C-alpha cells in the first residue's frame, strides 16, 4: 500500500465477501427446488422466484462492490495521489449496503419491480443512482485533480461511466413487452459484454503490470486492442438476444455474426496474459495471485467465450434459448470472468493493504481449486440438463414437466457440486479475512 486512501478498498472487499457466501446459500436452495419437492406451504411463503431474485441481486451487489473497491485501490497508484474524498467513499459504501439489504428484505415481502435481475424497486433505484454518481464524482475528481492520465485510468473511468449510464435504461416501465426486453438487454448484455469487460480489462492490465513488471507501454497497447475488440463485437453482439423477442429478422444476422466474433478479445486476453507472464521481469512473490490471474483469463475464455459461442448461433439458439443451457453458460461465464477477476483483485490487494508481503497461501490454494473444479462440474451438469431439456421439450415436443423429470438427476448432481463449491468458497473467504504472513523458510 503506497497511499493511505487505498485502505478504503479493504472495506469494500470485506463487505463483498459475505454477500458472495449468501448468494451461494440461496443457489443451493434454488438447486434443491429442481431436485426435490418443496412443499406448497413453503413455496407459498418463500418461492423460487423470491430466492432467485436474491441470488442474482446478491451477485450484482457483491461484484459491483468488488469493482468499486478495485477502483479505489488502483486509482491512487495510477494517479499518484490520494482519493479525492475518503469520507464520501465510506458514505457511499454504507449507502449501497443499506440499499442492498433493504432490497433483499423487500423481495421477501413481495416488494419488487418484477423484472428478472432488475427486481430492485424503482424508489431504491434512485438511491442506487445517487450512490453511483457519488462514486463517479469521487473517482473522476481524483483523476482530474491529479491530471496524470493513463490508458488504464481512462478505460476504468470509461467502463464505470458506461456502466452507470446503462443502468438508467433498466428503470422506466415499458408498456410494450418487446421494447421492455430490448432495453433490458442494454443493461444486462451491455454490462457483462461491454462495461464490465472494460473494467475487467483495466483491472487485469493493472495487476498484470504490477505482477510482471512488463512495460506499461506494452500492457496498455494490448489493452487498447482488447477493449476495441470487446466493444466492436460486444455492442452489436447484443443482437443475439433479439432473435425471438419480436424484433426484425435482420437481428439473426447481426447477432449471429458479431457474437461469433465475441471469443476473439477474450482469446487475446488469454494470450497476452500468458505472454506477460512469460516475459516477466520480476520474481514470483505470491504464486497464488498468479494462479488466480491465469485462472481468470482461462476460465473467462471457457465460460464466456466457448460456452457463449456454443449457443449463440440462431440455428442452435432456437432450441437452447431459455433452457438450462443458458444457466450453464451464465454460471461459468460469471464465475470465470467476474468472480475470479474480483478474487484475483482481492488476493492481489488485501495482503498489501494489511502490510503482508508474502502470505501463507496453503488454504487459498485449496479454496481456488475446490471452487474451480466444482464450478466446472456444475457447468457441465447444468449443460447436460439443458441439452436434455432442449431435446425432449423443444425437439420432441414432449412437454415441460416430462423434460424436467429427466433433468432431475442432473440437478441433484449439481447440488452436490454446489456444496463443494460452498466449501471452497468458505475456505477462500476465511483465508482472505485472516491472511497471515508465510513462515520464513530458512
Amino acid at each position, binding site marked *: 500500500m503506497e497511499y493511505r486512501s487505498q485502505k478504503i478498498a479493504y472495506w469494500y472487499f470485506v463487505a463483498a465477501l459475505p454477500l458472495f457466501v449468501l448468494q451461494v446459500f440461496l443457489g443451493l436452495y434454488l438447486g434443491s*427446488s429442481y431436485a426435490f*419437492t*418443496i*412443499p*406448497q406451504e413453503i*413455496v*407459498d411463503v418463500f*418461492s*423460487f*422466484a*423470491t430466492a*432467485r*431474485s436474491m441470488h442474482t441481486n446478491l451477485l450484482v451487489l457483491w461484484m459491483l462492490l468488488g469493482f468499486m473497491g478495485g477502483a479505489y485501490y488502483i486509482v491512487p497508484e495510477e494517479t499518484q495521489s490520494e482519493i479525492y474524498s475518503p469520507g464520501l467513499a465510506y458514505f457511499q459504501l454504507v449507502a449501497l449496503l443499506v440499499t442492498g439489504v433493504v432490497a433483499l428484505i423487500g423481495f421477501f415481502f*413481495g416488494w*419488487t419491480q*418484477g423484472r*428478472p435481475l432488475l427486481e430492485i424497486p424503482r424508489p431504491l433505484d434512485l438511491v442506487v443512482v445517487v450512490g453511483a454518481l457519488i462514486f463517479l464524482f469521487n473517482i473522476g475528481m481524483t483523476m482530474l485533480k491529479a491530471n496524470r492520465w493513463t490508458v488504464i485510468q481512462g478505460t476504468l473511468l470509461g467502463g464505470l461511466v458506461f456502466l452507470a449510464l446503462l443502468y438508467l435504461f433498466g428503470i422506466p416501465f415499458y*408498456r*410494450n*413487452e*418487446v421494447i421492455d*426486453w*430490448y432495453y433490458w438487454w442494454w443493461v444486462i448484455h451491455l454490462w457483462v459484454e461491454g462495461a464490465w469487460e472494460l473494467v475487467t480489462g483495466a483491472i487485469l492490465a493493472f495487476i498484470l503490470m504490477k505482477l510482471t513488471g512488463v512495460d506499461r507501454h506494452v500492457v496498455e*497497447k*494490448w489493452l*487498447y*486492442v482488447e*477493449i*476495441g*475488440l470487446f*466493444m*466492436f463485437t*460486444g*455492442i*452489436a453482439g447484443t*443482437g443475439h438476444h*433479439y432473435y*425471438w423477442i*419480436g*424484433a*426484425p*429478422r435482420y*437481428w*439473426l444476422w*447481426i447477432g449471429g455474426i458479431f457474437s461469433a466474433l465475441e471469443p476473439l478479445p477474450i482469446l487475446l486476453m488469454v494470450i497476452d496474459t500468458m505472454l506477460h507472464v512469460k516475459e516477466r521481469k520480476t520474481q514470483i512473490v505470491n504464486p497464488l495471485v498468479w494462479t488466480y490471474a491465469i485462472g481468470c483469463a482461462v476460465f473467462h475464455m471457457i465460460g464466456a467465450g466457448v460456452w457463449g459461442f456454443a449457443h449463440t448461433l440462431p440455428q442452435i439458439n*432456437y*432450441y437452447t*434459448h*431459455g*433452457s438450462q443451457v443458458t444457466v450453464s453458460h451464465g454460471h461459468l461465464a460469471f464465475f470465470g470472468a467476474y468472480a475470479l477477476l474480483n478474487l484475483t483483485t482481492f488476493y492481489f490487494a488485501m495482503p498489501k493493504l494489511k502490510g503482508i508481503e508474502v502470505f501463507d497461501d496453503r488454504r487459498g490454494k485449496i479454496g481456488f481449486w475446490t471452487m474451480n473444479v466444482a464450478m466446472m462440474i456444475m457447468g457441465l451438469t447444468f449443460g447436460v440438463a439443458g441439452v436434455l431439456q432442449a431435446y425432449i*421439450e*423443444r425437439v*420432441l*415436443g*414432449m*412437454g*415441460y*414437466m*416430462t423434460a*424436467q423429470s429427466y433433468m432431475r438427476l442432473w440437478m441433484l448432481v449439481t447440488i452436490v457440486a454446489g456444496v463443494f463449491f460452498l466449501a471452497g468458497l468458505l475456505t477462500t473467504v476465511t483465508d482472505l479475512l485472516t491472511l497471515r504472513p508465510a513462515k520464513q523458510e530458512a
Partner: protein
Amino acid sequence: MTKKTAFWIFLLGTLSSAVLFLAATWDTHRQVETLSNVDKLSEQVVAGKRTFEKYNCNDCHTILGFGGYYAPDLTKVVQRIGADGIRYRVKSPELAFANSWRKMPNLNVSDAEIEDLIAFFTWVGEINNNDWPPQDSKKRLSRGEQAMVATVGVSPGAAVFQTKGCMNCHALNGTGGTFGPALDTIGRELSAAEIRTYVRDPKSVDPKSMMPAQTGLSDRELEEVAKFLSNRK
C-alpha cells in the same frame, strides 16, 4: 504496432459497432409496431403486464424465453392451455399442482388481475417472433412428427400424442404431465369416435371439463391420435 495504431483500433471498433447498433435500434422501434401488433396493445394488456411484474411471475417462468427456468415458458400459454387453464392454475395452484412434484405458489391474485394477465398473454402470444418456441410451432412439429414416424418407427398417432403437447397434461406409462388423467387405459372407456369428439370440444361432452378445445389439430392428426388412444386398453 504502435500505441497510436492500437488506439485507432479501439476507437474505430467501438464507433462502427455503436453506429450499426443505434441505426438498427431506430429501425427496430419502427418495425416493432407491426411485429408486436401495437394496435392491439390495450390498456388491459398493459395492466396485465403490471400484474405480471407485481407478482414477480418472471423469476420462475420465462416469457419470450427470458426469466427463470423453473416453470414453463409463457409466450404461447394461451394457445397451449387456454384462458380457463390459466385461471385455474393461477387461482388454485395448490389444487392444480397437487399431483405434481413441483409446486406453484398461491399469490392471492385477484380475479380482475387474472383477466388482465390473460389479456397480456393473449397479446404476447401473437407477437411475430420468428416462430419461437419450437415446441409450439405448427411448422416444426409436423416435421418432428414425420421424423419420429420415419426413424423411431412409432405410429403416426403416437407421434401426434408426443409432439402436440398432449403430454403437457396427460401421462402414458408414467411419462408426462399430471394435470389431466393418465391415459394408459382410456381405450376401455372411450371409442375412437368419442375421443375425437371430446378432444375437438371437451365442454360439449362434459361442461365441467378443464381441458382446452384442441382446435390446432388437423383432421388427420385428430384421427390418428384417437385411433392410437382407443387402443390403450
